[in-house]
């Protein structure tokens, strides 16, 4: 089958940069990041099932600076993908597809995902007693 001469849709550089476009790309990027994070979830569960020594190893890594940085990134990725995913579900019901509404919900997703991430980490450190 010859597929070489088919017309192509305009590529990404043709379009003016917009928030809604940025959010769509970020949704995919955070999805890929969360897939990597899912590997960590499996490691954590398998370590828990393997015993105290393996669990201590995984927790040792997660407690390190690199571990915390990765967890912080995954927290934001999850909050973003969750908030923007709910935005997508409303679109599927035909709600909020107008330009202004889509723009407003884009800002809401950015603000909410950052606020939720910070709240989760403050709550986590408070629960661990690290913030007095």
């Amino acid at each position, binding site marked *: 089958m010859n597929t070489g001469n088919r017309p192509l849709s305009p590529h990404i550089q043709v379009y003016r940069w917009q928030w809604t476009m940025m959010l769509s790309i970020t949704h*995919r990027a955070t*999805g*890929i990041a*969360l*897939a990597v994070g*899912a*590997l960590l*979830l*499996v490691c954590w*569960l*398998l370590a*828990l*099932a393997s015993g*105290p020594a393996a*669990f*201590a190893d995984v927790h040792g890594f997660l407690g390190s600076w690199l571990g915390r940085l990765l967890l912080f990134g995954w*927290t934001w990725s*999850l909050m973003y993908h*969750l908030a923007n*995913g*709910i935005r*997508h*579900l409303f679109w*599927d019901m035909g709600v909020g597809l107008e330009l202004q509404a889509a723009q407003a919900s884009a800002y809401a997703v950015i603000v909410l995902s950052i606020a939720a991430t910070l709240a*989760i980490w403050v*709550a*986590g*450190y408070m*629960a*661990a*007693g690290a913030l007095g």
Partner: protein
Amino acid sequence: MTMRTPISRVRGLGSAKGGTHHWWMQRLTAIALVPLSIWFVISMICLASADYAAVSAWMATPLTAVLMLLLVVATFYHMQLGLQVVIEDYIHGEGTKMVCLIGLKLGSFALGVAAAFAVLKVAF
């Protein structure tokens, strides 16, 4: 003029024989993951300073084990649907694409089984 029968058009099954199944399952698992991921994040906050014994005891309660199994199933189902589209969008060689898709599908299933086994082992 189309050679397709009206019933085949209604079913919407093209050459992929998939119809809307992919789209529908992505939404279904997304809806399931909204409460499940919120529960997971709140649980992780509560377990921030928990040691091995405390996490094991928490995982062994029936409610936790069931919710964790649901989270694992929904997560890996949703994950492989999403990554499938990423592979289909960016990998154009038919052979490479097929290898990636098979690796993704089998790998996601294996990871899901491993995670589910771990939850059950702690729970029983």
